């Protein structure tokens, strides 16, 4: 032990000895420190760490040596190697040796992880090498799960190594003494950067990193990433515009073995839907509790149902089976993660909540239930199995409806070709900047020029104009450029050139609001007796009546009452009748998978049924061919159809639901220019439906000119104004920019009077401040993300160039069927409100007059 270091409360928190049983999480904060054993290894800190590494039986990979050397040279960059190859220590041991060498107090290494659920694993991994060192170092986490007493202590003194999430980092930056807290920072490690990169959370991290580079100019930044198509961009984004990143990668590609569980009888297999329960017995047969297995589902409610289903089919697995998703209470999640690690739990039904994380060691098999959505994501999930360098990853696809069989054949093909998607960072979202400005104003304040230059070192904001910066600053100061319109508004105030937040109430509200993850207000779920179960969305709870039963965390619960943002429940005697639905973005089919899907269908159209999945789906594809056509890779299939509901147009570009949403709104607008009409739109990953109650000459209208890219942006903007899309997008923007107060537990009741739906706010803005820049951003985001503008333009190019294959069908084809039953939301109209009401009335009176 170094003579200068004093024993401290919570030092290493009793965890440095690997042979010791980990203390249960609850008592950890209070645990007394274990006596410090001297390091068994000799030499400098880096030599000690190398000896520890060797004592573990590991030999450093070339990429690890490379990463340690690059760190020692003071470089920043990106470490890119497949999951399970030892990224964490590649990035961490360099900084750790550095910190041990210097042996100083204060925060020196910041480890950023996107999921607070995995911070425990990271903490374990980062604590372990400490026993090789002679220096006392503290490694602690600070996430949304951190207790308030620990937080209070960290407010006074931060550990040398801190593990945190993007949101908690922003909260630290919002502290008055942020500049001092971060001044001694030596290294920042950003884990799972590919997960953050293309989202607003990624942008939030970029801005935070820009701030930290200002506080600690010599800080080295290393990102860890799985396979991406755009590694250089990912590396540039994490280090900022003022540095040249070093790229450390290793060709440690693990073989991936993909299999699809093909249904025996495709005739009885559903044409749509996502639950996939018809496959439950086959999956139960396939499962083997001696092989520990993760079952990935695409939604939390699907995970609940599958867990319940498996429990029902295999009651004997009760103690081996568990459920894991992001809404389940932390303690339960930790129990499940612990059970996976020590092997007591063998089968875990989960969602993306287990996509990330350090190591589940013994997981042997991975099942993907429903569409894999993307190639990178599938590889990542597959990589969860046999989490050892060089071992073969295994993943089993389980289709939930017939056409997913084709998707799975396509995914296998794309995986074989390693067609991983790029993840593109956002371009200067102003809502995130607005939030960041308030964060900086709280965290010691800022001056205009300095912050503007700092923000521009974040790659996503490199092209931020003076005008855009001033607008955003005006937004948080005066509410907008038209000062008169916002007389009572003040969030950030200027005093002698320094911008600060002076109103304590606004400061508190901002802290509650930090973050960019969009979700409905979440409500605590508790037993009457007091036990916490997790969270559900307020909108779900608000529809429940006392006595309603539902499934949550694998339990049947009866709703009793809703009070103070808490839903009280008791165990239900009756069978649960429903499962909560959680919002959150449904991932669209990725570009890689979509194009693989078109290829696979083209092959099927040519009669190629060599792939098992295609052969199994053949009865459906054959029905599609007989009723209409199988969509090919060349032209785009269009179908028109007249039913009781009205006149349908179906179009199948296979470009993912987001592009289809944009395209549907755009086409609806352009069609209404040809003839007055009201269209309701419906989209899925494969195509779209436009439905109108009045006859419409679709075939004549579908000429190449309809797909022109001329006036694309203007037309989308116009269709966006007409439809719900921008309004929906505005919800997230309003949240991030602080226009909507989430009903967080602990928020005082006074915020209740400022609850309004973002849709209502959107309407107010459109009417009274149409030039508001957040509206602009809503439109821009709808263009860029919602519709994936670039992808949409490429789609239009394809549609304009290749002929539309137009078929009139007498009833909806197998491809159309899911669109018909999943009809949704948006509509585009240029008829007057009164016309529409009268026509709706007419329909009902006809319906009433019809004999029973």
């Amino acid at each position: 032990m170094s003579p200068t270091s004093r024993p401290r409360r919570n030092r290493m928190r009793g965890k440095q000895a690997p042979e010791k049983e980990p203390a249960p999480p609850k008592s950890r904060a209070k645990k007394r420190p274990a006596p410090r054993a001297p390091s068994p290894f000799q030499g400098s800190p880096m030599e000690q760490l190398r000896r520890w590494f060797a004592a573990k039986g590991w030999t450093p990979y070339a990429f690890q040596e490379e990463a340690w050397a690059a760190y020692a040279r003071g470089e920043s960059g990106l470490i890119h190697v497949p999951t399970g190859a030892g990224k964490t220590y590649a990035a961490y041991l360099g900084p750790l040796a550095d910190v041990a060498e210097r042996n100083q107090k204060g925060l020196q290494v910041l480890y950023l992880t996107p999921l607070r659920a995995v911070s425990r694993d990271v903490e374990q991994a980062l604590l372990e090498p400490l026993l090789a060192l002679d220096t006392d170092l503290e490694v602690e986490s600070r996430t949304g799960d951190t207790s308030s007493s620990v937080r209070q202590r960290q407010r006074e003194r931060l550990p040398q190594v801190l593990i945190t999430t993007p949101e908690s980092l922003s909260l630290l930056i919002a502290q008055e003494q942020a500049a001092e807290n971060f001044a001694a920072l030596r290294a920042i490690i950003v884990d799972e950067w590919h997960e953050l990169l293309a989202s607003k959370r990624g942008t939030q991290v970029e801005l935070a990193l820009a701030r930290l580079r200002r506080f600690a100019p010599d800080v080295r930044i290393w990102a860890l990433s799985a396979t991406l198509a755009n590694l250089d961009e990912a590396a540039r984004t994490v280090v900022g515009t003022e540095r040249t990143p070093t790229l450390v990668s290793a060709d440690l590609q693990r073989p991936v073995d993909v299999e699809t569980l093909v249904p025996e009888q495709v005739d009885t297999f559903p044409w749509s839907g996502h639950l996939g329960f018809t496959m439950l017995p086959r999956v139960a047969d396939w499962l083997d509790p001696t092989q520990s297995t993760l079952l990935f589902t695409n939604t939390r409610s699907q995970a609940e149902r599958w867990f319940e289903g498996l429990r029902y089919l295999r009651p004997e697995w009760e103690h081996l089976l568990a459920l894991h998703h992001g809404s389940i209470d932390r303690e339960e999640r930790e129990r499940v993660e612990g059970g996976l690690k020590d092997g007591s739990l063998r089968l875990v039904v989960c969602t993306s909540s287990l996509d990330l994380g350090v190591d589940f060691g013994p997981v042997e098999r991975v099942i993907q239930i429903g569409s894999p959505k993307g190639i990178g994501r599938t590889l990542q999930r597959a990589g969860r199995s046999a989490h050892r360098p060089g071992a073969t990853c295994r993943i089993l696809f389980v289709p939930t409806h017939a056409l997913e069989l084709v998707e799975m054949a396509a995914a296998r093909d794309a995986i074989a070709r390693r067609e991983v998607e790029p993840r593109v960072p956002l371009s200067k979202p102003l809502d995130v900047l607005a939030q960041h400005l308030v964060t900086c104003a709280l965290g010691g304040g800022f001056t205009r020029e300095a912050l503007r230059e700092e923000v521009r070192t974040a790659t996503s904001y490199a092209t931020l104009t003076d005008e855009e910066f001033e607008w955003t600053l005006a937004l948080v100061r005066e509410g907008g450029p038209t000062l008169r319109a916002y007389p009572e508004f003040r969030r950030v105030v200027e005093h002698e050139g320094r911008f600060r937040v002076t109103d304590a109430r606004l400061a508190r509200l901002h802290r509650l609001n930090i973050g960019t993850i969009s979700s409905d207000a979440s409500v605590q779920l508790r037993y009457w007796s007091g036990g916490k179960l997790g969270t559900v969305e307020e909108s779900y709870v608000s529809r429940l009546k006392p006595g309603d039963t539902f499934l949550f965390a694998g339990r049947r619960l009866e709703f009793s009452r809703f009070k103070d943002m808490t839903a009280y429940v008791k165990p239900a005697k009756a069978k649960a009748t429903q499962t909560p639905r959680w919002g959150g973005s449904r991932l669209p089919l990725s570009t890689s998978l979509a194009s693989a899907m078109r290829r696979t269908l083209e092959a099927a159209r040519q009669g190629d049924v060599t792939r098992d999945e295609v052969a199994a789906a053949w009865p459906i594809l054959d029905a599609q061919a007989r009723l209409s056509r199988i969509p090919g890779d060349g032209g785009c299939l269009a179908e028109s159809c007249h039913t009781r509901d009205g006149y349908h147009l179906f179009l199948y570009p296979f470009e993912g639901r987001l592009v289809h949403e944009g395209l549907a709104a755009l086409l609806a607008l352009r069609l209404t220019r040809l003839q007055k009409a009201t269209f309701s739109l419906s989209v899925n990953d494969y195509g779209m439906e436009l439905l109108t109650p009045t006859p419409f000459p679709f075939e004549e209208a579908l000429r190449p000119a309809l797909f022109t890219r001329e006036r694309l942006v203007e037309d989308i903007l116009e269709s966006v104004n007409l439809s719900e899309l921008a309004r929906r997008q505005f919800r997230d923007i309003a949240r991030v920019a602080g226009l909507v107060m989430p009903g967080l537990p602990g928020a005082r009741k006074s915020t209740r009077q400022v609850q309004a739906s973002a849709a209502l706010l959107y309407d107010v803005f459109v009417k009274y401040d149409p030039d508001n820049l957040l509206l602009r951003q809503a439109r821009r985001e709808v263009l860029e993300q919602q519709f994936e503008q670039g992808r949409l333009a490429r789609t239009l190019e394809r549609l304009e160039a290749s002929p539309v294959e137009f078929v009139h069908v007498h009833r909806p084809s197998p491809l159309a069927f899911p669109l018909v039953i999943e009809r949704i939301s948006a509509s585009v109209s240029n008829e007057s409100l009164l016309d529409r009401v009268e026509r709706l009335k007419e329909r009902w009176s006809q319906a009433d007059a019809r004999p029973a």
Partner: protein
Amino acid sequence: MELLPERALHWPEAGVLAVADLHWGKTESFQQHGIPLPVGVLDDDLERLSTALTTTRARRLLLVGDLVHSRQGLTGDVIQRVTTWRRAWPHLDVVLIRGNHDRHVPALPPAWNMEDRADALDEGPFRFAHHPEPAAGRFVWAGHLHPMVRLEGGADRLRLPCFHLRTGVGVLPAFSAFTGGLNVRRGRGDRVFAIAGTAVVEV
């Protein structure tokens, strides 16, 4: 009784115009909480109120609760704009029947010149009250719920503010344009009148 597209109820025989849920100062409450909402709703709402008063030539205006959104929202500017509007209608009797939001405001600004009632107002065969609770022997006109109606059929969908007439109780639409609403649950024999732009249509 006439149901007006200005979101108001007209009782011609008595020269009475009734509106509910005006939520004056709501935008300003948001601004005070650091939410930069533009103003303009209040001016538009007052203008719509004037239109209804002009077309009906009503002598009395009944405000059926939730006049003021919150105490913080009642800024000097809001008080002044309402005062200016009030001065344009010097001969109009204005009665506030208090609602749940109004409890935050102990007294109305004197310049508004309004009768301030804590409880329901009985007039002829009617009772005017904020909460839509039935009363023995009287038909109740109330607010509070901000009723909205969903219309859908085949391809089209709409959601509009509406009047919801149940047995013994008629619920007025929220007058303020800056209000959300609850979808009406239609009981047997209920009548629903939707506000479709400049017309009121039974649906």
